[in-house]
């Protein structure tokens, strides 16, 4: 069961995508919405774009470099491989510079990043770090994070 607030959050995302990010990015987010399994490359571009780290006119393949230069650890897997929910949560926690809990401060990584997002009501309780991520869920989580953390 999806969290009811995600529907509204998704609407916020599309508003932001179409107005603030431009037509090309809105097209990308539209494509992502239909993806059954988000890839590492999709996630890096999506989160970087939303946080303003990746410029709108940047090439899709350059997104990891922008994030790395900003001090964000991107998943080491090949860009085309599917990203897990935990890895996606870790990207978001770093990108939005969330403090994380006690365990996250010692061991920053997908496990405790996901716990933090559950605590902050961005991800539903019961989620598992190894879960695969659909495009729709990824957009909803990102939109909810943007709504919560004001970026």
């Amino acid at each position: 069961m999806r969290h009811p607030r995600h529907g509204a959050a998704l609407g916020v995302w599309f508003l932001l995508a179409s107005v603030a990010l431009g037509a090309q990015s809105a097209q990308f987010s539209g494509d992502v919405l239909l993806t059954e399994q988000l890839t590492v490359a999709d996630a890096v571009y999506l989160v970087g774009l939303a946080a303003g780290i990746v410029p709108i006119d940047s090439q899709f393949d350059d997104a990891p470099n922008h994030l790395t230069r900003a001090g964000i650890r991107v998943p080491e897997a090949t860009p085309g491989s599917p990203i897990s929910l935990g890895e996606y949560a870790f990207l978001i926690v770093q990108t939005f510079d969330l403090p994380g809990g006690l365990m996250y401060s010692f061991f920053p990584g997908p496990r405790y990043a996901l716990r933090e997002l559950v605590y902050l009501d961005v991800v539903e309780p019961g989620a598992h770090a190894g879960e695969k991520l659909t495009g729709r869920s990824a957009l909803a989580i990102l939109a909810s994070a943007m709504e919560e953390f004001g970026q």
Partner: protein
Amino acid sequence: MRHRIAHRITAIAVPLVLSAASLLSQPRVTLDAGGEVAAHLRNTDAVGSSYLTAVEELSLFGVARHMPGHIAMEYRLGVTGRRDSRREYAEYAFAQNLLASVELTAATFRLINREFPGATGEFSFELGRRRFSDPTNLIIDGIADGASIVFEWPSVSASLDVAYTGLSSKNTNPIVLTDADRARLDDDSVYLAGPRLLSVATIGAPAIVARQDAEFFVAHLRDLETNGADGAFAGLRVDGPIVPHLFHTTSIAAGFTADDGVSLLSSFSLRYYLDRVYLSRFRVETTYASGDSGALSGFNPVHRVRFGEKETGFDAGFADRLVAELAYSFRPFIASNASWLAATELGFDLVSFFRTTDAPAPEFPGNPTGPYLGTRVLAAARLRASSDFGLDARIGTFLRSNPDTDDHDRGRGFFSTSIFVLF
């Protein structure tokens, strides 16, 4: 004999390790391993009843689900309040036997392949100690050691769990079905639970119609200690949205034993999510378990997490019960900029017990004579200082069906606090 066992273990372990190693070489496979240690506190007061135990659920009243804690540790220290209305005194005691109550409640190795079988499939294999449960969470719901295999596709899923209970603590989620179980609970020198083999197989269909998820299951209990105490269960759970923000879970199940015949269980719950009013969650739930009457026998689940001693302060039974529950929880400071304050949750829970046959219910305070047996009321608060650390407090009482009876000792209130730290 030893050689034969070693050979069998090798024959199972080697292919497993090789399979795992070959799967691990693929980038789409992830591994997750971790665990949880929990301290289960049990306070025994002057009259011998206990009503303070640690509860693993990190949510109020089951409205929210467990946090995705992987390496988690809970230490719960508590105080128990007692008020005797006749003598007008209050008594508080710290929970005891902290070390003896500590148990490893989860330690699992999990392997997930997100592109098998087929591009849209997902396969997971989990080995170790964790909570095993059936889809209703009413029949089997306890800590055990075992393995799970799950296959998932967009339109169907299948799973098989096999678990052994004899290596876990007898106190965490006790199985009390036979005289041997009762003797074990009373014997302080025994730490482990009775040896049983639990199996649960499910076939699920997500969003089968009108966004309703359906899951059919069969479960089997094999008692390795007492002959003739085996049992089997079969059932169906359907859950999903009814209208926006309103969700239901409907479960029916039948139990089969060699001696007692067929028994029935049904449960229906409605959950309403009102996010704009302080993240309010309402839940109304009814649970029916057949008693010995006519062609039906009493429904006895394997574990008794719901309406057991932890929830009421005494053994409220399960067979021959109709239970109605109303729960509400909310976050009064959700708009606060401070995360810990925004995460603070308050809840109220009211559970009324009825019996479905004329069989006596001597365990209930007040010697009830009619179908209504009494109501447990409870208020709870949860403070989450961070995602790793928090504090719980609960206060409640059991309202007897007949308040005029001279049975004050079992109709008292209770109060408990606990601290939890997740790792």
